[in-house]
């Protein structure tokens, strides 16, 4: 029995082991190797040491633009999105008629957010003739109603930040589930008066939710770093005026799959990997300190 157990464990694990090895581990190693080469897919990769990385930091101003755009996007949209979802989770938790209907409506944008259809819609909402400007015109704000909110480099990234905040439904549902697990007495103790409730929320309830917040922060940051479809569709694939929509993933795509600079694209991917790993680590550190404090 014992012996068979051991065997069975591995047998059931076969698909994942194969996938992990063939589609994750080996590609990761290769990706690093390619990042040290000049590789256009038509001929064999030729080793060039670290010059792809050197180029990235010395020559390629798109790289810096892409990092800037992506960081602005991630570190503005994720906090906004989470704050919004946390507030609404608290609002929904306390007896609202048609709760499940509201929950469903709030969740729908999360389902559709990354689709081409929504990106197309967004172009028409924030474009020069879009419905946002129609609204401004109807409100008499003619001075700003001729701005293209997706083409103007000052605003373009904001239309995508709004798109992300729009998708606050899925972290909200996770928060809702988290709030449900907090003992009722704790929540009710907060109901004495406004001032103490504020304290209850910040001192007791939020710290209790730290693991869930951490989970949401990391998941949303990782997924924000991966954004591609919206940026591709809305900028028409070229990253927009002044690289204002050149998200990091779009830069990887353009270098690798449109210019066929696979080696360089691999180097870009590795830097992305390092950035994400670093940020994940930092979030863990920041939150674990916070938890200890209480």
């Amino acid at each position: 029995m014992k012996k068979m157990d051991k065997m069975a464990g591995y047998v059931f694990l076969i698909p994942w082991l194969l996938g992990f090895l063939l589609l994750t581990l080996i590609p990761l190693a290769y990706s690093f190797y390619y990042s040290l080469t000049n590789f256009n897919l038509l001929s064999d990769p030729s080793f060039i040491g670290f010059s792809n990385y050197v180029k990235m930091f010395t020559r390629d101003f798109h790289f810096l633009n892409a990092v800037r755009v992506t960081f602005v996007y991630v570190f503005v949209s994720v906090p906004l999105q989470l704050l919004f979802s946390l507030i609404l989770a608290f609002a929904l938790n306390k007896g609202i008629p048609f709760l499940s209907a509201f929950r469903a409506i709030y969740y729908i944008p999360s389902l559709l957010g990354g689709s081409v259809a929504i990106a197309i819609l967004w172009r028409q909402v924030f474009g020069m003739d879009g419905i946002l400007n129609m609204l401004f015109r109807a409100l008499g704000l003619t001075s700003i109603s001729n701005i293209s909110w997706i083409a103007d480099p000052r605003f373009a990234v904001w239309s995508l930040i709004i798109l992300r905040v729009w998708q606050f439904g899925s972290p909200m549902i996770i928060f809702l589930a988290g709030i449900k697990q907090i003992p009722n007495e704790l929540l009710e103790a907060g109901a004495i008066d406004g001032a103490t409730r504020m304290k209850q929320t910040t001192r007791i309830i939020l710290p209790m939710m730290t693991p869930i917040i951490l989970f949401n922060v990391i998941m949303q940051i990782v997924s924000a770093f991966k954004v591609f479809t919206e940026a591709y569709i809305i900028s028409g694939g070229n990253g927009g005026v002044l690289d204002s929509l050149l998200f990091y993933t779009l830069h990887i795509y353009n270098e690798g799959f449109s210019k066929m600079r696979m080696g360089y694209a691999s180097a870009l991917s590795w830097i992305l990997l390092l950035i994400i790993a670093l940020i994940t680590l930092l979030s863990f550190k920041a939150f674990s300190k916070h938890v200890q404090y209480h």
Partner: protein
Amino acid sequence: MIRDSKTVRIIRTALVSVIALVLIYPLVWMVVSSFKPEDLIFKDLSLIPRQLTLENYAIGWLSSGRVTFTTYFYNSILISVLAVIGNILSCSLVAYSFARLEYRGRKLFFSLMLMTMMLPVHATIVPQFAYFHKMGWVDTILPIVIPKFLATDAFFIFLIVQFYRGIPRDLDEAAIVDGCNHYSVFYRILLPLAAPALITTTIFTFMWTWNDFFTQIIYLRTPTSYTATLGLRMFIDRQALSQYGAMFAMSTLSIVPILVLFVTFQRLLIEGVATSGIKG
């Protein structure tokens, strides 16, 4: 439950309703616009069309003339269904291994599996592409579908593991005493009981694959192998004249399957999100 005063409750409900309206407005506007005649789309913000037409759908469906949305939707369905089969088969097996079996290295494998959730697809896409290219798989659906049979969607493994852990071990132990081995325990006991998790996996896999753009634009190259998302992208790239109506019509059609699935399995999906943190 805490009870707020009546006014506070009314204000809160009103606020929540307004937010819901703002959120849903662009979507509804798109759907409504898809039924408006072309020249009326950007004329008014109202959600009640003054004139209804199905022409946009007819124009949009024909797309480039030779390859129509019939092909694109067929491909989308094919890829999504195969992805579902792959994920269900592989993830449920692997989850059983993680949830119920003891062996050396399990903890290490489990944490590696969790780590792959963080791994951006971009980190491995170049070698994967080079590899599939060598296999002659580029421009086929294989690079999109085969990985699903190799349990690469760690989220679903995690979801099903969580679910298995909630099933009392007494059941499997009783079965083992009765002479069942692990393989029968897996598909006679755990698999049927895990149906809700499997359905959640099915629906999310379907929706994610349906919505996916990055892997599809990389691997699918000719219009005959395009999916609905690529068809839409091509549609907007190639217009001689802007056909907003047709564009909205096809955009609307492309999200219909997702909305239908969501409405049908709403409760299950939201529970799935709540317990495992899956992003929609």
